[in-house]
């Protein structure tokens, strides 16, 4: 359990740098605005208490806001997915699944991850883009933007996961 703390701190730093220096720096198009930073909240250990998930979601969001100049917006979205995470994991995981200590793409499988990341990122980006635009004008433009950004975010997140996940199946009792 102890080595989870430095692991998650390292992951937070890596995701933050990747987000602000690569994904928020390269302007793909006005329809595609990928965010991989929420992966930090999504990869916290399964046993993390819900209130910790919420606080981490909010404070990691504030950290991103600090760099991107969008005070509070990523915090609100991060808090929401932190609150929803245990709920969602309960729904999408088949009964009797053996859990690793934290979500792992080799343990849970890629299908599980696509569903997991797809749903959370759709919720995250829906809240974020509508709050950012502060209007429901251009509704279909926004929907398309949310959809495309979700797809691209999930693809980049999966690449990140395959690059940085440990293949070895570990058993923590």
């Amino acid at each position, binding site marked *: 359990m102890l080595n989870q703390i430095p692991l998650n701190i390292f992951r937070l730093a890596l995701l933050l740098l990747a987000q602000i220096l690569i994904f928020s720096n390269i302007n793909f198009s006005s329809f595609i605005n990928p965010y991989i930073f929420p992966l930090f909240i999504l990869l916290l250990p399964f046993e993390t208490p819900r209130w910790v998930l919420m606080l981490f979601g909010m404070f990691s969001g504030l950290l991103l806001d600090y760099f991107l100049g969008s005070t509070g917006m990523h915090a609100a979205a991060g808090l929401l997915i932190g609150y929803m995470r245990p709920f969602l994991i309960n729904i999408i995981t088949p009964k009797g699944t053996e859990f690793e200590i934290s979500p792992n793409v080799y343990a849970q499988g890629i299908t599980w991850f696509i569903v997991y990341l797809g749903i959370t990122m759709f919720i995250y980006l829906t809240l974020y883009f509508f709050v*950012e635009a502060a209007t429901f004008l251009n509704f279909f433009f926004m929907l398309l933007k949310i959809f495309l950004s979700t797809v691209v975010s999930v693809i980049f997140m999966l690449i990140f996961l395959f690059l940085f996940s440990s293949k070895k199946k570990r058993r923590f009792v």
Partner: protein
Amino acid sequence: MYNLFQFFLRYYLFFLFVSLEIFCFYLIFQNKHYNEVAYMNVANSMSGKVYSTYTGASDYLYLRRFSDSLVDENAKLRAQLLDSKYISKIDSGILRDSTLKNVQQYSFISARVIHNSVNEAANLIYLDRGRLQGVGKQMGVINANGIVGQVVAVTDNYSAVMSVLSKEFKVSAKFKKNEFFGNLHWDGVNSTTASMEDIPKHVPVKVGDTLVTSGFSQLFPRNIMVGRVKTVKMEPDKNFLEITVDLSTNFGSLSYVYVVNNLKKQEILLLDSLAH
């Protein structure tokens, strides 16, 4: 009382969620109303340092393009020098240096873009120049191709610029050919176009007409390029033309910009207060 306590204990997660969410939205709306306070955060030294370190490294990849654009610009400037103009009359009232000093209204501070975005609803650009180098709030920012934005926050060594690609940004622009002026603002969708407001229907506007700054806003000098008319629509139920403009600045590839320092601004503000 006990029941109430039990109720809160059972749903404490939900109440925690709602109260934290309220706090986040409080931050967001405070940001919307007091932009300067929020932009202060992003112009601060910590995130400024991260961005300028990154830009320092990535600049090496673009050195050739930068030097090309600088050479182009030098060529344009050289063409404007008095030396390169043919003067037909000898001593026909060319301004001497001492008089030039008195008529200069604008000075320019060159700055490097260390962070840029075009896909957000309000796009911010960070520059590596700040208060110590003479940058102040409410100064305009231009580059070789056209207008870029307006300084909204300054720290000692960095500044944040609200780009033209922000819904709150408005600039007074005019048609080069007939001096009719209106407000240019961004429509929030495409990073290459903006729309022009307040042009009455009787004004003859053609696709391809050039728009330049009017100089009324004190942000930019007169006749800085803004863009060209892309489409003109005349709606029967409206009093004004609907014009979309192709912006001349390519916001996706900003590297070096100039901050415009209006030396006569104080005097114009004084005049403004006297007139009202």
